[in-house]
């Protein structure tokens, strides 16, 4: 587990698909890290240039569903725009998410993208604060 104040992402195993997890001091940063984890399912985020910005807004009745909505909005943008993202800025207040994602058009030779994200699922979906006050935002994504 990350030390308080640290932010990072990780994957966790699911047999057919893959789990994504963001860990950070704030809820918004945990959502940013979860998005980074999802993009790392597709390619190495360090290979993706933050050339184009895409704005995303979502509202949900609870933090769990807001995470699913956020990740699915990114998956939709990646598919419709043929983009891969690597940088995120998220703000969350009263169940309302405002975000910007930066990335570039998918380049098979340079990015070697492994899979498309079909969607974020409700499986292993948890958004919570651990005993150290760190926010955890996670779910399984279908690939």
């Amino acid at each position, binding site marked *: 587990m990350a030390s308080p104040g640290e932010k990072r992402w990780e994957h966790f195993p699911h*047999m*057919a698909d893959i789990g994504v997890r963001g860990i950070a001091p704030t809820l918004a940063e945990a959502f940013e890290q979860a998005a980074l984890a999802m993009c790392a399912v597709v390619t190495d985020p360090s290979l993706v240039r933050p050339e184009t910005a895409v704005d995303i807004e979502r509202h949900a009745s609870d933090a769990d569903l807001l995470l699913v909505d956020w990740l*699915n909005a990114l998956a939709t943008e990646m*598919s419709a725009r043929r983009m891969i993202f690597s940088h995120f800025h998220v703000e969350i207040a009263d169940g309302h998410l405002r975000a910007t994602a930066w990335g570039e058009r998918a380049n098979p030779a340079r990015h*070697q993208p*492994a899979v*498309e994200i*079909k969607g974020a699922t409700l499986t292993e979906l948890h958004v919570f604060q651990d005993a150290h006050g760190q926010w955890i935002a996670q779910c399984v994504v279908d690939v």
Partner: protein
Amino acid sequence: MNIQHLTRTSDAEWRIAPTGKMRVPGIIFATEQLIREMDEKVIEQTSNVAMLPGIVKASFAMPDAHWGYGFPIGGVAAFDPNEGGIISAGGVGFDVSCGVRTLLTGLQLEEIGLHKEELADALACSIPAGVGSRGHLHLSSDELCAMLEGGAQWAVSRGYGDAADLDRIEEHGCMEGAQPELVSAQAKARMQDEVGTLGSGNHYLEVQYVARVFDARAAEAFNLRPQQIVISIHCGSRGLGHQIGTEYLREMAEAASSYHIDLPDRELACAPLRSPLGERYLGSMRAAINCALANRQVLTHLTRQAFDRIFPGSHPRILYDVSHNTCKLERHVVDGVLRELFVHRKGATRSLGPGSPELPEEYQSVGQPVLIGGTMGTSSWILAGTRESEQRAFSSACHGAGRAMSRHAATRRWRGRELVDDLAQHGILVRSPSLRGVAEEAPGAYKDVDAVIEATGQAQLARKVAQLLPLIVIKG
């Protein structure tokens, strides 16, 4: 899996007795070896599905079952709309109508020999594959709706294939009841440039040969001969299906409580079949089925073009096209009574036995071709549906090998370049835009498909007809 709470009812059938909120038993089809290797989640998810309103007879899991989202992958469940039955977006999956289509080339193994590299390159060039790839078609809004309404019939009417192709596709190539007007603008936007694309992950196009025939009579009806070259295409409804799955899973998760459905797990999100939400999903999901059928039809056309360039006049024809992520209205006899049920198959293939009126005439005497994909280094299989399968599991069988290892573990263990070189040494040419994608799909990351096929045969869900081995693999 800990099997102490299961009752073995035959060599390849295990029963989960109904307890707590389970309305019906759970039935898992597997040999002892396969069931011991299955994850515990299969029991949990099979039991959870058994709690859903209107479920009929049992909640089934096929021999390749593994942990899914809500429903297990390899799950089959039928619901009666007259008994409050539900429909579940998770019970169909994100890749609506993902399935396999197999084409017969009429060519023999020795004819491919000198042209293998050329054919691999021609297919890699013709078939758009991988993340971010676009198809050769750009559909206007009206054309997109026509495609969602007409499926493979739309594709044939636009010159992608022959009218005869439709006889060899489930639903004659067009799922009735599709409502393109219910499909969201986002789902349509994702599909405008994706018709005729393979996708990524476990989707593939393979050139294979018939390594062994097990049932000569069925093989003759299917026109399969030893050493014959066939082509198998595994893909689904692309971005449109993914978007529909995403939208309805979310909506059903929030709406379940308003329908007073007590979900054992939120991810079993569903709605009554007879509800505005259930009916909207049905109309949208049927449009996505047509999208998948049109997609595989256009890919067939592109495959034929590539083959015809190298083998003029070969014009591969369809053996069959069957989906393994669907919910369909079907007639089944339950306890002697004919009922109309909505059968969910999530990672399970329909397996109609001999005499089924839905089959083409030439397959009537032997049953439906059941097309099972393996991995890029191992067997795929052609099975035939059995009469027993109707009684066992609403005419259903397995759909593939199922993963034995996560994608992350696979990339730590194998490198894409080495796998491609190793497979080439074994006579299998792999063409993929992503070496990382190849590593994630390493044959060793999957279970033994042959063991799944043996269990499927033992459970009488389908019987072996022919074993296929890969020669050329196009991956996304």
